[in-house]
């Protein structure tokens, strides 16, 4: 698909992260993209799982000649790396496979990458993030218009996800205050956290708001957009489905950040067999059980609303 040079800011960036590996981030990314593309939206998926990129295999593509490696090593332009998929309105920027690690990306490269992601010619750019809470991963997450978190209903995944969101929020707060020239204040409060009773990031924000009403207004304004969209994957029971609602409540009390529990995807043997065997299933998965679930996910993300949990939240 030819990419014009015309910058288009109509495109909305979605980032899919969540901390733990193996929760199905790549599967969810490809599903969200497929659904949107089949609705006629122009979609570009970006595989940012540096070092563990496999999004292309979800579309039956071998390791393509063009990948993010060219961006980092030869300075190629991002829009030149776009590869067409079998779905007409969807294309893909494949990730780097082995030569890079997340930590080795230079600051200037990162900024350049973000600038070019924003200019990609698409209505939806969906970024598949790798596992972990590395600063570069968090920064990529934070440039998104829709910050999406995928987890499985098991304790380690939940723990990593809390950690991931906490770090993302902390980084956002620090960036905001740095932009306004208040960087030292955060450090100041943090250093004296014993005396002021600041134990976590929510306390820190509350403390800053109390002590510096002006900062409070800035933070309120800027953090209003800090909205997390939660997706539960590999759900096996009704009880699993309720976990999303519990996480929403816990995060509200813990970090004070708004969460939308946009939906869940059940555990489907066929899907996981295909993933394991690296068989492309995207073209026919829409006839399987998760089509309806994916549709609900996307519509709830677009509308920024919670899923209606069957049977009520009891």
């Amino acid at each position, binding site marked *: 698909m030819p990419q014009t040079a015309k910058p288009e800011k109509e495109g909305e960036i979605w980032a899919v992260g969540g901390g733990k590996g193996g929760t199905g981030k790549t599967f969810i990314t490809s599903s969200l993209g497929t659904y949107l593309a089949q609705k006629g939206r122009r979609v570009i998926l970006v595989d940012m799982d540096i070092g563990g990129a496999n999004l292309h295999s979800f579309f039956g593509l071998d390791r393509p000649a063009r990948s993010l490696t060219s961006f980092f090593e030869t300075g190629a332009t991002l829009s030149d790396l776009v590869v067409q998929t079998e779905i007409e309105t969807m294309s893909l920027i494949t990730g780097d496979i082995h030569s890079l690690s997340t930590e080795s990306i230079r600051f200037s490269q990162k900024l350049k990458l973000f600038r070019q992601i924003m200019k990609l010619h698409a209505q939806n750019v969906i970024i598949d993030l790798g596992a972990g809470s590395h600063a570069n991963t968090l920064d990529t997450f934070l440039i998104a218009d829709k910050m999406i978190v995928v987890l499985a209903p098991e304790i380690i995944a*939940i723990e990593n996800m809390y950690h991931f969101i906490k770090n993302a929020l902390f980084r956002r707060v620090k960036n905001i205050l740095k932009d306004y020239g208040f960087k030292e204040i955060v450090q100041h409060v943090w250093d004296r956290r014993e005396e002021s009773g600041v134990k976590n990031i929510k306390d820190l924000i509350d403390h800053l708001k109390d002590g510096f009403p002006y900062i409070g207004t800035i933070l309120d304004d800027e953090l209003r957009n800090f909205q997390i969209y939660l997706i539960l994957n590999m759900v096996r029971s009704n009880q699993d489905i309720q976990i999303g609602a*519990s996480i929403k*409540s816990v995060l509200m009390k813990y970090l004070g950040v708004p969460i939308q529990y946009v939906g869940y995807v059940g555990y489907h043997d066929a899907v996981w067999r295909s993933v394991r065997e690296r068989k492309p299933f995207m073209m026919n998965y829409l006839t399987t059980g998760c089509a309806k679930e994916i549709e609900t996910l996307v519509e709830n993300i677009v509308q920024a609303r919670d899923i209606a949990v069957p049977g009520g939240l009891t």
Partner: protein
Amino acid sequence: MTRVDLGRYYVVLELPDGASLREVQNAYIRLKKLFTGPSITLTPLEEEFPKKKRQRILHEIEEAYLKLRAGLIESPAKAEGIPSQETDSRVPEENRLDEITFSGPVLRKIRERLGLTESVVCQELKMRTEFLRALEKERFEMLPQEPFLKGHLGIFARYLDLNPDRVVADYLRRYRAWKDKCPAAR
């Protein structure tokens, strides 16, 4: 109590303004359970939620529930002019619920407020529809004898999350007054 006053309690229970009493109850039960016991969603943050903090949260949840319940149960009774003892506007809000007399029509209003249809209640409580109607309309002559009536009232009151002792006492007072006036029923 106005809707505005209830706003912050809705926030505590994570509900939109104006949610029904049924939604309030469900949210209360869910949140209370979540912050009481260990769960895979809370355990990873155990250090962030020490006992003291959880108790504070539970207290807020409890308070929000009681206030919302009082506000939501009381307002339909007032709006419909259902016979309750004269409410004095200077009486603190939380006491008002105590002044409602749980007559048949009041019980019906509360049931409707909870979004519970006759058929749902009858199915869940294994009651006959005619019995529920007679109970709510105070067609005393159609009701069973006192011990049975008492039992049914208790079940119904608990189902509506009302104090069963008070509901039974209020209702039986009215029932006995009718019986005294109507010798044939004795």
